[in-house]
């Protein structure tokens, strides 16, 4: 009796939870409403089965509870019933699979006119590349990657000179026209994930993966990494800004081309020294590991860092000053703070960039 009641309560509670819970799909911002529709179909079919079978289970538990004077039925098989149930299940499965495959067929066929945009992942930040006025993305190779060429652009490829490189924290896209996201990783698996777009795909080093969508709703959305990529996985963040074509074009104008990056240095972006430093920290992905609000991270927080006394891995202590900061950026493992893994790569920054970053660090 108690069991039957609890089973019914769990069924009713589950259904109520489905309708009343504040957590459901985020408002969609792409053309993939079809995905939401197939999800809804699946919910209807599966929800029906869930309710019916479990209520029947509860009924059996109650109705056929043990009585000493009663015997169970003896019915080893019932071919008719078994066939009906098999057929019924098959129909239910087809009702979910058929629309699913129909939508998948659309998903794998990229429209011819899709705009190419590349997202590049590395531990633990996102950067983006747009083809320049020629509409062609220049060739890249992992062997070309260095501090001055983080995208690994082939310096001899004329198609790449006008490619627009975005090292900041945002990818912008215009509303209404399809986008083919090309995905490339420099180190490990990542996954380009914007919940409101619905589509997602892994980045796999050694190959280019892709998916496509059409932005439909203006806004600024979180970009996350959805494939475990090491210590800083949860902090590998960026933003996707969906906006009108004109706003998008205006934004794209302000971003440097590959040719620009070969002459202009990072810190020459204007603003106060602290603001410049903040830009450096964002574009270099520092804040993937170092929080600026005191919360724990892969590396020590930057909040109140300057002047703090840190215990190093070898047991000695050091008061954090500019010299220590410069050393820790250029050779992070030389004087490692105790309790943190030696995983930060060395950064070779020119003097002005370093000065800006140090100014920013001292301001926190």
């Amino acid at each position, binding site marked *: 009796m108690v*069991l039957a009641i609890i089973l019914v309560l769990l069924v009713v509670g589950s259904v109520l*939870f*489905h309708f009343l*819970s*504040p957590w459901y799909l*985020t408002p969609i911002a792409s053309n993939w409403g079809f995905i939401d529709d*197939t*999800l809804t179909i*699946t919910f209807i079919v*599966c929800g029906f*089965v869930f309710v019916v*079978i*479990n209520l*029947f*289970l509860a009924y*059996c*538990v109650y109705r*056929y*509870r043990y009585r000493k004077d009663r*015997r*169970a*039925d*003896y*019915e*080893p*098989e*019932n071919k008719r019933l*078994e066939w009906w*149930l098999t057929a019924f299940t098959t129909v239910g*499965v087809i009702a*979910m*699979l058929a629309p*699913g495959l129909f*939508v998948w067929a659309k998903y*794998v066929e990229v429209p011819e006119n899709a705009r190419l945009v590349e997202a590049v992942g*590395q*531990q633990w930040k996102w950067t983006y590349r747009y083809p320049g006025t020629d509409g062609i993305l220049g060739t890249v190779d992992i062997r070309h990657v260095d501090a001055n060429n983080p995208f690994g652009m082939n310096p001899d490829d004329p198609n790449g000179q006008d490619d627009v490189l975005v090292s900041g924290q945002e990818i912008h896209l215009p509303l209404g026209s399809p986008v083919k996201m090309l*995905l490339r990783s420099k*180190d*490990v698996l990542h*996954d380009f*994930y914007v*919940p409101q777009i619905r*589509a*997602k*795909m892994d980045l*796999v*080093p*050694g190959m280019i993966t892709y998916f496509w969508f059409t932005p439909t709703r203006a806004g600024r959305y979180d970009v996350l*990494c*959805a494939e475990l990529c090491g*210590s800083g*996985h*949860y902090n590998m*963040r960026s933003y996707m800004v969906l906006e009108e074509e004109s706003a998008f074009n205006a934004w794209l104008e302000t971003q440097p081309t590959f040719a620009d990056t070969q002459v202009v240095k990072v810190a020459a972006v204007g603003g106060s020294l602290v603001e410049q430093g903040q830009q450096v920290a964002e574009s270099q992905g520092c804040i993937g590991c170092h929080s600026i609000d005191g*919360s724990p*991270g*892969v590396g020590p927080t930057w909040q109140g860092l300057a002047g703090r006394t840190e215990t190093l891995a070898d047991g000695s202590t050091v008061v954090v000053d500019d010299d220590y900061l410069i050393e820790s950026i250029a050779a992070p493992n030389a004087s490692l703070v105790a309790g943190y*893994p030696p995983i930060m*790569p060395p950064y070779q920054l020119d003097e002005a960039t370093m000065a800006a970053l140090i100014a920013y660090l001292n301001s926190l």
Partner: protein
Amino acid sequence: MAMTDVAHDAVDYVRPAEVAEEELYHPKTWLGKYVFSQDAKIIALQYSMTAMAVGLIALVLSVLMRLQLGFPNVFSFITPDAYIQFVTMHGMIMVIYLLTALFLGGFGNYLIPLMVGARDMVFPYVNMISYWVYLFAVLLLLASFFVPGGPTGAGWTLYPPQTILPGTPGADWGILLMLVSLGFFVIGFTMGGLNYVVTVLQARTRGMTLMRMPLTVWAIFTATVLALFAFPALLVSAVMMTLDSVLGTSFFMPAIVSMGQTLDHSGGSPVLFQHLFWFFGHPEVYIVALPAFGIISELISVHARKNIFGYRLMVWAIVVIGGLSFVVWAHHMYVSGMNPYFGFFFATTTLIIAVPTAIKVYNWVLTLWRGNIRLTVPMLFAIGFVFTFINGGLTGIFLGNVIVDVPLSDTYFVVAHFHMVMAVSPVLAVFGAVYHWYPKITGRMLNESLGKFHFWVTFVGLYCIYYPMHYLGILGVPRRYYANGVTDFIPESAQTMNAAISIAAIIVASTQLVFLYNLAVSSTRGKPAGDNPWGATTLEWQTATTPPTHGNFGKELPLVYRWAYDYSVPGAKEDFIPQNVPASGDTGDAR
């Protein structure tokens, strides 16, 4: 041929033996009897206790993860690195070192010889070695907690390249110990697995045709066959990854710039590893699920006092599910970057599996229908299993249907789904099985009140933990995150939910201590059970002594005259007729 037998017709005659019985090996020392034992029953207990001990560690790890997720920034010792190390070790221990070892090494060893009417496993010596190799694998794995850098934090799927690169904790020692330990596990399992398969095929007592075998044996047998085919894929991927890590080969490693350093690797394929891993990994799901299916069929039939409904279809469902489980693996890889056209094939095969799986669920429920249901503790767990398995099975349809998987993959929906179907359900089956067979193993009953308390907290608690978690996933909360941080689409209420889930998890985890207490105390103070406390038909309940001694059945092996599910046969004196009672014994005294 056995397969064409009408399953539920009893006979009076069993063919005579063709060869004389082999003499069993008899240990001469205490060590040989209880430590380096070749008796499958002792080996089963060794496997079970080791698996439960290591499972307890994994349980503690899960509580630590929940502490971080429910109350971020409160426990300073849980760093981002420690968190993913907990995630990794929890997953690997639970799936391989607990569930696989417990179902096959534990229940397989105990139940197969007893249920098919054999004196022991066919190769007792190899069986013994199997356990010691498993124990060695467990110790290697646990050793990784104590090496520099700690255990690997690569996630239980161990996806390269990050597995062996410095951005992942344990990338030097931890991962090597993990890979070597897995290698030994596979070797140990293969020794045991061959034993289970050959014993089922060759050592059944006379009259025990394949279509008279209890579904538990069918299920463990099929799961073992799956494991023998699937584990080699894990072994080769572990070997190749070890070579990539130690010798710098490039099986799975493409050209990479890691943390500013250009590595020497080139040309390897990370996706190849995923194919190998899931070629093992998906059958692994059924290696755990099938034994649970079999055990649940047994429990429901015995405690509902009714034959299992549709026995033959149940057998075929087990075999078909086992076969299909080898052609669905890439449904774990819909967003991995593999050729998207694979999606059509793997979504179709995956959803086809839903049909035999649904048949199993229908038949469990139809067995209860018009039964005479005793709500014993094992039965409570069995019904709990059916409920959670329906839930977890249905959410599998979401994830198997390729396009629906795209938004849900790598979110908490996946976490909730696989825990419901592969953790909650099998664990409920394990508990049900322990309450069911403990009287045979020890000769004493487990305390019923403690058992009921254990059931209610565990069943309702686990459901309340995992059901809401699906909705965090539908919202889009990504899995394997140390903290959600400031994320616009995740409302404050999600954190409240996380805290509630964590509290429930701590309650459920602590309740398992009651179970352990019950196990310990009842072994000496429990109510004496007698030979057949549940009134069950299968051979393990018909042994001469309880607990059964070395050789299982005393002087004479039992002969089998009927299928395993003669409950409430019309006209019979009792509501069950054991398998070793001839047809003419139906109406007389069943014993």
